[in-house]
Every structure is written in structure tokens, then in C-alpha cells.
């Protein structure tokens, strides 16, 4: 029985290098299920919950750096003002019990296309911090996901943190599921409006082999200088472009057709809500 319990990041990275068969464990909401059902029998476990460097978030001025093992409950409680889409997505994760344990680092390591944390990270242009015994590197979130449950995380590396730019305008996260809790998304979308830069950020979940953005929708010409002129046609076109960016499949949770339809509806709704919130005053 080998259960490594490093008390600091340097020790954790050394153990990661010396014991490639040891599986990293944080909140356990994915790995413990696999262990309970004997889907995996790792020779050893590397527990990250005792590593203080991973447990905290910090304000870096323009962005918030969130340690890999900060649980969703704390993201909801502490970061809703600076990171509204991520906080909203975090609140849809599982249940209170799951949010008390589950972490953004674990979400990224699992790299499920349905991970609730991913769309807001894509919409805001977050950066993933990776480290190994030999050094550290950063990966833009758009390059992190490489396939279904596959990511840029290399052997010998640990996810140490995610840096998320602070909101520069209204944000939305919408998730479709069969109930309000304990549900894996049928599809989800995050939208971040940067009023100053006149930029829209998008992130789509559960509608492709990886979480993805909708670059063509982001480039749609919108009436930034005369916001009250945002037409129904433009909003519908935005929804259409978001749905077109997805490549959903039929599975137990939904059909591909429904996912495309729901994405178009949710994207249009998210655009109306963020646009309305951003330009409320100029409308009067």
C-alpha cells in the first residue's frame, strides 16, 4: 500500500517524478468513484490535499489565480464578483457535498467535455499552470484540451493553478440538464462580454469531443456604438453560429440535434442578458 502525502509542492513534484504509477488525488469526485467500482487499481496514490500552495486563490490585479485544489464551494463564496461565469458554473456542479470536495484542478485533469468549469475558462481566456520536478509552464486554455478526457497535461506534471482574467463586463453561464442538481450537462455555454475591448468570449460544454469556443460567433459584427440597435436577427445569428461551432453526438443524455437547438437558444439568451446588463443605462 502506497499513499503519498506530500506536505508541500516541491515534495509533491518530486514524488510525481519518482512514482509515475501514483495517481494524483484531490477531491476524489472522479477518482474515488473509479476506485470504488474497481475500474482502476493504481499501485499508489498521490494525495494533493495536504499541499498548501495548491489550496489558496490570490488576487493578481487583472486576474485571479486559483490553486488547483480550491474547492468549488470557495469559488462560489469568494469569487462571484470577479469571476461571475465561473462562480455560476461552480454552483451548478453536483451538490453541496460534491462542491465541498470537487476542484477546478481535478475538473481540468479529467478533461471531460462535460466539465462545468471549462466553458467559463474558455470564455474568459484563462491560463493553466503546469509544473513538474524540472520546471513550470503555462498553457492557454484554448490549447489545453486535446481530445475526449485528454489534455496537454504531460506525464510527470501536476496542474498547480488556473489564472482567470477578472470580468470586464457582464457574464453568463447557462447549463441544460434534467434537474437543477447532480446532473451532467446536456450542453452548456458561458459568455463573457468585454465592453471596453468590444469583445465577446464564448465557451461551450458537452457538445463536442472537447470543451470548445465559438470563434465565428465571437467575430459577429455587433452594434457596440449603438447598443440599442442590437436586432433580433443578430441575436439569432449569434445563436446559430454558436450551435454551428459545436460538434455534438447522440448519447444517453441527449441527441445531437437537441444539443444544437438548445445551444442556439441558450447562446441567444446569454447574449441578450449580458448585452442588456452592459448597456442598461444607455437604453433609457
Amino acid at each position: 500500500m502506497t499513499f503519498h502525502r506530500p506536505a508541500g509542492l516541491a515534495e509533491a513534484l518530486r514524488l510525481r517524478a519518482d512514482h509515475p504509477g501514483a495517481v494524483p488525488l484531490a477531491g476524489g469526485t472522479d477518482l474515488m468513484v473509479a476506485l470504488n467500482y474497481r475500474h482502476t487499481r493504481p499501485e499508489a496514490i498521490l494525495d494533493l490535499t495536504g499541499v498548501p500552495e495548491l489550496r489558496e486563490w490570490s488576487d493578481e490585479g487583472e486576474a485571479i489565480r486559483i490553486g488547483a485544489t480550491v474547492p468549488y464551494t470557495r469559488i462560489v463564496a469568494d469569487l462571484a464578483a470577479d469571476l461571475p461565469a465561473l462562480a455560476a458554473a461552480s454552483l451548478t456542479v453536483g451538490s453541496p457535498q460534491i462542491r465541498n470536495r470537487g476542484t477546478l484542478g481535478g475538473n481540468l485533469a479529467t478533461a471531460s467535455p462535460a466539465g462545468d468549469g471549462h466553458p467559463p475558462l474558455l470564455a474568459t481566456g484563462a491560463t493553466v499552470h503546469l509544473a513538474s520536478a524540472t520546471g513550470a509552464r503555462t498553457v492557454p486554455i484554448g490549447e489545453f484540451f486535446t481530445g475526449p478526457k485528454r489534455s496537454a497535461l504531460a506525464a510527470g506534471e501536476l496542474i498547480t493553478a488556473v489564472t482567470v482574467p477578472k470580468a470586464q463586463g457582464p457574464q453568463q453561464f447557462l447549463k441544460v440538464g434534467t434537474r437543477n442538481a447532480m446532473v451532467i450537462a446536456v450542453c452548456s455555454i458561458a459568455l463573457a462580454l468585454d465592453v471596453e475591448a468590444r469583445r465577446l468570449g464564448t465557451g461551450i460544454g458537452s457538445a463536442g469531443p472537447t470543451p470548445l469556443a465559438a470563434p465565428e460567433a465571437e467575430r459577429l459584427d455587433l452594434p457596440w456604438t449603438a447598443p440599442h440597435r442590437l436586432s433580433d436577427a443578430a441575436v439569432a445569428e449569434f445563436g446559430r453560429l454558436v450551435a454551428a461551432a459545436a460538434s455534438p453526438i447522440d448519447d444517453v443524455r441527449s441527441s445531437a440535434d437537441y444539443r444544437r437547438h438548445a445551444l442556439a437558444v441558450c447562446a441567444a439568451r446569454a447574449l441578450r442578458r449580458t448585452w442588456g446588463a452592459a448597456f442598461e443605462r444607455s437604453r433609457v
Partner: protein
Amino acid sequence: MSVPVHLRIDGVETRAEVDRPGESLLGTLRDRLGLTGTKNACEQGECGSCTVLLDGDPVCSCLVATAQCEGRDVRTVAAVPGEVRDAFVTCGAVQCGFCTPGFLVAVADLLDRESDPDDARIRESLAGNLCRCTGYEKIIEAVHVAAQAMSTAAGSRGAEADGTPRIPSRSHLHRNQWINVDTLPRGEAEIGEDTP
């Protein structure tokens, strides 16, 4: 080779020898320590039957590795205040009972944080606990009754002038099935008549 883990369970300093790296806290409580109040149902964090408080926060004990619990504080259903348990009995919030220990822990935690939560808050707090028998209405009612009983016990609001907990206005209980759980010895709640 086994690894010793020292943790506090319901206030008792406990040592557990764990010989499988992925052994869950649930498995340790039930199979190694014989503390079977915590129930094992889904083992994937979906149902909440195994809910315990880990350093004061509700978690699914099936998703916590025991070896992660060195020096930590665990509270099980055995540490839940009697007012919560009695309210479940009074309100008929128990049918088969398998989910009940998890609900009791989650409710005790909620009432520890908020003395008088509304229905929406209760539903949100209990979203991680599944009951396939009762349909939740009586469970939500039991939370209101427990809240009143606890604030009565604390000598505060939520009660009539004589200290009797108020029946929630949305109560499904028949009037003459109401009992004052506060006046009964713990664990001996019975259905009385015509009170208050």
C-alpha cells in the same frame, strides 16, 4: 503494508489501519470500525446516503480516501442533535429509512449555519441527498420543525409564548397528529393528539 490514520470521529480520537490506498472513509467507518450509522448506497457521490461532516463540511464519505483524513475531524449521524432526528420521526419524513442518516447530517449542518432557512434554501442544501420514498415534502417540513425545536431549545424565536414550536403554516400534518418534540425524551417521539 498498512498505513495508520489518526482521526477524530464524533469526538473520539480513533486510529485506523488502512491497507488499500483507495479505501474510502465510508468503508473504514462501516467495515473497519463497525460504525454502521453511515449508509452505503451508490458509492459514486450521487445519493448522499453516506454524508458526514469532514472538518465541519458535508461530504460524501464514499468519495474521501481515509488516508486523506490524518488529523481531521469527522462527524457522523451519531453526532446529529436529537431535535433533528425527532423532527423526522414526528413529520413522517422517514419511510424505508436508508437515506435518513445522510439527510440528518445534511440538515444538522444546514441548521448549524442558518437557524430558519426557507424552502428554497432547504431544497438547495439537500440537493445532494436522494430519497426514493417520501417525495421530500415531509423532509422539508421536518427541517422547519427541527429549526423551531432547536431555536426553542436555544430559548429564542420560532415558538409560541409558552415555548411550543409553531406548526409550519404549510404543514401536511393533520392537526391532531401534532406533537411537541421538545417535551419528549430524545428518541421517544410518539404521535400524540390535540396538541397544541
